[in-house]
């Protein structure tokens, strides 16, 4: 601790922005044999000042990770090749130095944390060994000294009980703890640059907030520079100094974070910002970027964004625009940046969100006290010794024509609830009444009947389509299963559905692997709509998609709802998107609904402390907002659902918890008014202010 | 890793170098033996050769030259009544390897042990001519009435009727066991007794050690009554299969191989003949008529023309010349002994046309395949079966060869489903030993053949010990068997043998031995062999 502090002072004295600790110049990386290359990184240049934090933002395949991994010498060669460029670290070219030298810099001067904390730690080695090995390698410390420093670092990242935990293995930690350990591991040698490669993508939003906070704190404490790789503009808006936006292997725009949001220059950046809903901005219709990110298999001799750009002209397809200065500290790579301007949700197809027809006050679906328990069997005789209380007494109604969103962090039981409603999981208790009929425990013909009216759109666009069926067969499957129509009429219906979800007829005979993620999700939607259901359960339908594609799918769902008279149960964890598309929201925690009400009421005046924490953790795509909003960072992680805490499930993490919360499970109370509608909250201290 | 491999090399080299030094004390003879030769729980010796006679011995053994009987534990014997009563004078001063004196009690005990129905020895019938045998078998007597110890050194054996050849043909098979050891064992338990893996005998070598499936080690008996052996010890190395024996002969890991199981495969001869440290006897008569066996109770083979046709169909000479590389002599009747065969036998020269004609005449149904069983799995015999199959197919006899093990063959015999097969039967010593193949009702090998004239001639052959007299009977029988073809006689087998010249006396003796002698202890003068200097 002491060491860290003095070091921080030393670094801080140099100040920020005085000199580039890292200067990347014209970096190009290709993969595969020449002639058949993937142009992963094209002519990327940026500077990183001492103590500065830089975000590199881009969608999957944009080359952001390859860029930093190349700097670290982490890409495998072959197939990877650095075809041009320099990367000067304190004046020494990282790309030219022999591996032996680079190794001295890796881990000591430049450290890295990775996306998936679970897979980036070695599962068979103890945390202690993995923490200390860099110390022993770089600083030649003996075991005791290395262990002492590692313990200091563990304490610094907030791992309790560190001495015992040193002997534990990675699988014995939660994801959030693992990422803390990953950070400790990167920082043990007090590097001057930390590269964070999407370190929060695999984490829940409340944990993500913890990690971001930790890194920001440590950066200040240790005075290091940070390169933060992310696909999420909103996330980085709150804490970095500069942002570089990458697209198809190139930096298209780079600016101080404020300028990037307020004076956005590049059409792609504009497109990205228009694709994400804002918690604070007006609730206007999302404007997606058309098309999908390209595979970078063509030599970068043109603007890669041109096919998706509304401003593209002939020039864009003939020559690649250079990255040029477009302001004090802003650069942009676009031939037409001077003509492009970001208005509020401008661009082709921009329009107001379609007027929501007021939902009829008639319950289409009523779920009462639903429980889904999965037995745990142990011992010699495999006796049931307990159960995972995945869904533990959930009640809600879905009104005809509305969108009810079910939100919560992973493991809270929201997906299981959705599946139970459709009959994919057998409820242990409770009733599921759809249009007046209780379907809980339905089998056979009854189940089949239910499935004609209810359908599901699944999360994973890769896993939810049978890879060995053509698109046409996948879409028509429900019709065949329900024996609807003749072969010819089914064929016609498939064509109709393809058109409905915005897919070309030509795709009918394609296989899923030939489609992009967005197209697959459209196929999934078309499949669900085939038999004209009344009710769609959408289970995180956009969470696996790139930002620019998410908006496409959300808009499609939004458009279809009034056209086909659908009702949605939307399961998700992306709160800003949910706020954008739902009429009412139910917040789940550990198998129970803690708060349910209209979107306006819940988002506007959240009453349950968990909801409040959840909402405060949502990153906002506006650097200014980041400063003003007060974040409630919850301690710890979600408890084991097979051993839920007694009383209120949330009490161990709750800032308001009192004696009663540990004993009595709070009943739901209605805090709604005529204006806000029903607003049920299950909390003894609902609405009380946090200290 | 490379360093690791390099560090292994010296160790490897050391191991290989150790192989170059042959750790051989003076005077060890290593002989290869096939598995199965060791189990002797039912007293009979399936591989009488070599091991038994070095440890255990009988009253008499067969002479080295195969033409007479050598006194062993019995110094002399005489019969006063033309072979009904024999009196044996035992050798004096003989001691068991454990030091106990050998006496007439041991002889009486041993003969009774063989005949005891509770022991269940298949060789009990060797004593079936002894007076009182039947009573012993059916339980009305508890010992053989005909066997008596006249004193400590004299034994009298009385037979039911006069058998002038009894000693030569039957007694030679009987080994004498120590009464003071096996006498304590209940007869029914003799089979599983530890004695058989820790034998105490009177022979030139003393049983020392038996390692299952590895070897038997016997050490020199300095008190041997025919003179102390020159070899220090003999190690009988046990092998399951022939190829490893050949390899061991070549590498001098063994000095000799037994001739049970085929001796040196003919195909390996050229290889061994090239080695100057080996003496190879390429054409050692096996006294082993080889034939096609038919089930005469099966209608298809009942017609003699069918059997004759098969013999005409096969070019036996070509098979001997090529597949058997000359090792084998044509045989057209049962007896391998020259003197027992008539000179005017039908030669059944290769004549496929005649074969076809005979088959047509006999109304042979060529569409029906014939189940054809054989046992010898070595390359030469498999090739032989292949050639036979091909020759028979050419005349319309479609045999389907199946290689079976003894148990399966005996099962096929027992349940009567046997059709046809390729077999051989060792009977080198005397023509009378062929009787189980051809006399009426002899099970299982006669296969339904019955010619009272043949039975009569076999009986006659045993009434005298004068060879000329006997020859007349057997030659007559040979003519009948040549015509009747109860089996289709093919040839007399030849067994090549190979010996390491290191053992002086071994090869020389075998050169004198006219033929392989199966199943009977032979006086082989092992005490005179020695390791060359």
């Amino acid at each position, binding site marked *: 601790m002491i060491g860290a502090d003095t070091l921080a002072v030393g670094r801080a004295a140099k100040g920020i922005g005085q000199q580039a600790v890292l200067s990347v110049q014209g970096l190009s990386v290709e993969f595969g044999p020449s002639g058949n290359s993937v142009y992963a990184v094209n002519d990327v240049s940026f500077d990183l000042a001492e103590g500065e934090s830089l975000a590199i933002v881009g969608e999957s395949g944009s080359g952001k990770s390859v860029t930093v991994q190349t700097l670290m010498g982490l890409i495998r060669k072959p197939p990877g090749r650095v075809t041009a460029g320099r990367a000067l670290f304190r004046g020494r070219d990282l790309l030219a130095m022999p591996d032996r030298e680079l190794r001295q810099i890796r881990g000591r001067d430049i450290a890295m944390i990775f996306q998936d904390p679970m897979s980036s730690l070695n599962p068979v080695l103890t945390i202690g060994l993995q923490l200390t090995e860099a110390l022993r390698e770089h600083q030649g410390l003996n075991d005791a000294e290395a262990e002492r420093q590692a313990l200091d670092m563990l304490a610094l990242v907030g791992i309790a009980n560190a001495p015992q935990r040193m002997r534990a293995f990675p699988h014995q930690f939660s994801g959030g703890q693992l990422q803390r350990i990953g950070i400790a591991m990167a920082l043990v040698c007090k590097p001057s640059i930390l590269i964070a490669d999407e370190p929060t993508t695999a984490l829940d939003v409340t944990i993500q907030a913890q990690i971001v906070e930790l890194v920001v704190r440590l950066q200040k404490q240790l005075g290091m520079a940070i390169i933060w790789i992310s696909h999420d503009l909103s996330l980085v808006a709150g804490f970095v100094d500069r942002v570089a936006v990458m697209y198809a292997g190139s930096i298209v725009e780079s600016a101080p974070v404020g300028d990037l949001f307020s004076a956005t220059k590049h059409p792609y950046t504009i497109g990205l910002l228009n694709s994400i809903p804002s918690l604070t901005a007006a609730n206007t219709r999302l404007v997606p970027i058309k098309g*999908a990110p390209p595979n970078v298999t063509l030599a970068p001799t043109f603007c890669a964004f041109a096919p998706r750009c509304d401003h593209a002209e002939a020039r864009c397809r003939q020559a690649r625009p250079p990255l040029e200065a477009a302001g004090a500290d802003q650069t942009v790579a676009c031939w037409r940046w001077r003509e492009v301007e970001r208005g509020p949700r401008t661009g082709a197809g921009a329009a107001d969100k379609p007027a929501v027809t007021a939902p009829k006050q008639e319950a289409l679906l009523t779920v009462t006290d639903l429980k889904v328990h999965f037995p745990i069997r142990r011992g010699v005789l495999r006796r049931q010794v307990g159960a995972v209380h995945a869904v533990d007494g959930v009640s809600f109604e879905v009104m005809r024509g509305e969108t009810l969103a079910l939100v919560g962090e992973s493991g809270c039981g929201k997906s299981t609830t959705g599946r139970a409603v459709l009959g994919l999981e057998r409820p242990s208790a409770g009733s599921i009444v759809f249009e007046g009929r209780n379907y809980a425990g339905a089998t056979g013909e009854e189940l089949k009947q239910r499935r004609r009216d209810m359908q599901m759109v*699944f999360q994973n666009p890769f*896993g939810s389509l049978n*890879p*060995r069926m053509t698109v046409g067969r996948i879409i028509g*499957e429900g019709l065949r299963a329900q024996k609807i129509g003749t072969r010819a009429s089914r064929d016609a219906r498939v064509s109709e559905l393809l058109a409905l979800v915005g897919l070309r007829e*030509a795709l009918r005979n394609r296989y899923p692997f030939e489609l992009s993620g967005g197209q697959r999700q459209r196929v999934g939607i078309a499949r669900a709509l085939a038999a004209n259901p009344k009710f769609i359960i959408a289970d995180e339908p956009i969470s696996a998609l790139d930002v620019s594609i998410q908006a496409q799918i959300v808009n499609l769902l939004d458009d279809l709802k009034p056209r086909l008279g659908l009702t949605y149960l939307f399961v998700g964890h992306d709160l800003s998107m949910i706020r954008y598309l739902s009429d009412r929201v139910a917040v789940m925690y550990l198998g129970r609904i803690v708060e349910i009400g209209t979107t306006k009421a819940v988002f506007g005046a959240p009453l349950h402390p968990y909801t409040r924490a959840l909402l405060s953790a949502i990153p906002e795509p506006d650097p200014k907002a980041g400063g003003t909003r007060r974040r409630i960072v919850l301690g710890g992680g979600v408890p084991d659902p097979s051993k839920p805490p007694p009383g209120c499930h949330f009490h161990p993490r709750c800032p308001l918890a009192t004696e009663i919360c540990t004993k009595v499970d709070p009943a739901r109370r209605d805090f709604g008014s005529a204006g806000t509608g029903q607003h049920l909250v299950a909390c003894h201290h609902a609405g009380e202010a946090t200290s | 890793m490379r360093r690791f491999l390099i560090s292994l090399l010296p160790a490897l080299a050391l191991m290989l170098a150790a192989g170059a030094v042959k750790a051989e004390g003076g005077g060890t003879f290593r002989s290869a033996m096939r598995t199965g030769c060791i189990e002797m729980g039912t007293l009979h010796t399936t591989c009488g050769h070599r091991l038994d006679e070095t440890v255990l011995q009988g009253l008499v053994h067969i002479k080295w030259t195969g033409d007479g009987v050598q006194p062993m534990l019995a110094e002399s014997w005489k019969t006063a009544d033309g072979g009904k009563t024999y009196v044996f004078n035992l050798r004096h001063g003989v001691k068991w390897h454990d030091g106990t004196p050998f006496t007439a009690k041991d002889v009486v005990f041993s003969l009774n042990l063989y005949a005891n129905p509770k022991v269940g020895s298949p060789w009990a019938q060797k004593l079936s001519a002894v007076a009182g045998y039947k009573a012993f078998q059916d339980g009305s007597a508890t010992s053989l009435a005909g066997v008596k110890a006249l004193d400590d050194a004299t034994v009298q054996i009385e037979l039911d009727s006069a058998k002038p050849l009894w000693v030569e043909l039957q007694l030679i098979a009987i080994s004498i066991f120590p009464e003071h050891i096996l006498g304590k064992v209940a007869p029914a338990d003799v089979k599983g007794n530890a004695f058989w893996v820790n034998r105490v005998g009177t022979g030139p070598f003393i049983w020392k050690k038996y390692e299952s499936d590895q070897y038997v080690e016997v050490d020199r008996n300095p008190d041997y009554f025919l003179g102390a052996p020159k070899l220090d010890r003999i190690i009988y190395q046990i092998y399951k299969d022939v190829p490893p024996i050949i390899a061991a002969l070549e590498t001098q890991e063994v000095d000799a191989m037994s001739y049970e199981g085929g001796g040196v495969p003919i195909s390996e001869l050229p290889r061994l003949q090239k080695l100057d440290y080996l003496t190879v006897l390429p054409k050692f008569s096996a006294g082993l008529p080889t034939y096609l066996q038919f089930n005469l109770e099966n209608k298809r083979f009942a017609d003699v023309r069918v059997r004759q046709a098969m013999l005409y169909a096969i*070019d036996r000479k070509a098979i001997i010349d*090529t*597949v058997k590389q000359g090792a084998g002599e044509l045989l057209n009747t049962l007896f391998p002994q020259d003197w027992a065969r008539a000179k005017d036998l039908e030669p059944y020269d290769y004549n496929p046309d005649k074969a076809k004609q005979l088959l047509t005449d006999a109304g042979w149904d060529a569409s029906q395949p014939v189940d054809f069983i054989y046992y010898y799995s070595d390359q030469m015999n498999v090739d032989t079966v292949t050639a036979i199959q091909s020759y028979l197919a050419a005349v319309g006899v479609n045999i389907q060869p199946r290689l079976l093990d003894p148990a399966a063959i005996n099962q096929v015999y027992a349940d009567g489903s046997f059709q046809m097969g390729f077999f051989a039967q060792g009977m080198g010593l005397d023509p009378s030993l062929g009787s189980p193949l051809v006399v009426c009702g002899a099970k299982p090998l006669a296969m339904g053949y019955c010619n009272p004239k043949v039975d009569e001639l076999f009986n006659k052959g045993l009434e005298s010990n004068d060879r000329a007299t006997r020859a007349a009977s057997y030659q007559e029988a040979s003519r009948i068997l040549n015509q009747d073809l109860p089996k289709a006689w093919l040839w007399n087998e030849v067994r090549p043998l190979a010996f390491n010249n290191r053992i002086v006396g071994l090869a020389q003796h075998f050169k004198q031995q006219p033929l392989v002698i199966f199943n009977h202890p032979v006086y082989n003068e092992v005490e005179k062999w020695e390791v060359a200097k």
Partner: protein
Amino acid sequence: MTDAALDMTIAAGASRGLWGEAARRFLNHRLATLGLIMLAIIVLACVLAPLIAHYGPNEIDLRGHNQPPGGMHWLGTDGTGRDIFARILYGGRISLTVGFVAVAISAAIGIFIGCVAGYFGGKVDLLLMGLIDMVLTFPRLVIIIAFVAVVGPSIFNTMVVIGLLSWPSIARLTRGEILALRNQEFILAARSLGTSPPVIILEHILPNMLSPILVAITLDVATVILLEASLSFLGLGAQAPAASWGNMLRDARTLSILESQPWMWIPPGAMIAMAVLSINFVGDGLRDALDPQHIMGGK
């Protein structure tokens, strides 16, 4: 409008389809292509043996035995003067037939049992897994030796016995695949559409577990060819005079043949090695070509 750009690029290249894509990847695999060609030549030569070989496989010529290669006998003759080349081809028929038929039998049993265990789960699964465990604890070769002693050696028996004893690995694989597939979202999707269980098995589960099973089956063929060779070498497989590569290799037990008549054992040995090698190559290629990673689009 939205995916127009991508639509265009896809429409430009003709769809190869699922199998087309697999075929392309397979053919890109150099060793696999080589293996396929080798295997095709071997199989074709064996099938067309009567047209290629000048002699019958069992045509003996005692006076012309043990001839070295050359002249009328391309690969020489064996101990009874049979043409080695002809026997190689006809023997290949037996060896390959044993391989394919035995594996077909074991695959049929294995897939059936695996499907039943995987689909029904529970007690049925427990029972069948017990059965699988039981058969797996037997050393296969040992049990086959004992079995052949029971039913008698013949190529038919060898095939059946190998088939009857080799299914557990495929059953296990099938069961595992089904268990893995059962939790795939597209199976959930099919269930949610009301697709009936038999249709789910037929349309969703079977086609998707096909590739790993196909790979396993292919590699099994190679194993069985080796097993047949071992059995025939021990005299328990193909019976004389019929040829199989394994019993031809038996000649090499004779040391002088091993040393001075290599034409009798090199060809069958080489054929065994080549057949097994090419099947292994093909299996390896199939594994890559059918890798579900590629069509599932995972990362």
